């Protein structure tokens, strides 16, 4: 069975500071990994994904995540956050044979001036 752990429920950070949101997964087979973002009162939007190939994946708004197979992690990073990055971030995993995603419990990123 697959599972996802997001170690931090809330991460407060000042604008222009770097941030890392942690995600660890457990699965005995190959996985597909995703980060989704949820702005207040909205649905989830795909931020970035790892399916295969380069272990470092990037989004269009400056976020990046690195797949680390040995540590079973897929941490999300941004070198300089903006107020508009304030949102809930969900890590999700799907094994190659499964039909569905398993989500972590989410990390609330709160960016302040």
């Amino acid at each position, binding site marked *: 069975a697959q599972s996802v752990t997001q170690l931090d429920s809330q991460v407060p950070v000042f604008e222009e500071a770097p941030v890392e949101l942690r995600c660890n997964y457990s699965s005995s087979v190959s996985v*597909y990994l995703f980060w989704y973002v949820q702005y207040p009162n909205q*649905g*989830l939007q*795909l931020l970035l994904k790892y399916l295969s190939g380069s272990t470092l994946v990037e989004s269009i708004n400056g976020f990046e995540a690195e797949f680390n197979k040995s540590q079973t992690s897929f941490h999300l990073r941004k070198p300089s956050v903006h107020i508009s990055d304030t949102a809930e971030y969900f890590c999700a995993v799907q094994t190659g044979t499964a039909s*569905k995603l398993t*989500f972590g419990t989410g990390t609330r990123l709160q960016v302040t001036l």
Partner: protein
Amino acid sequence: DAGITQSPRYKITETGRQVTLMCHQTWSHSYMFWYRQDLGHGLRLIYYSAAADITDKGEVPDGYVVSRSKTENFPLTLESATRSQTSVYFCASRGGTSGYEQYFGPGTRLTVT
């Protein structure tokens, strides 16, 4: 409009009543999903469907019924609503360039009194 829509966006109902949440997608994606989102639990899968007339249980199916007579629609019915079913419900469909990306609707906030 193209995409995935949910209706109603907000619903208040009484304990014991039947209520149906609607989900419609315009991409002709085969897979569709229903999740509930509760504080501290992240997103939990209720039911999913691989194609018209094919549905399967997720993590928390008790008290819910689904049907999928057409590819584009995937309604979720609470047969006899309970207070524990107060939640935000999200519908999603799966597709995209990789075929593994899930696209979410805006959600339905359901309150059972």
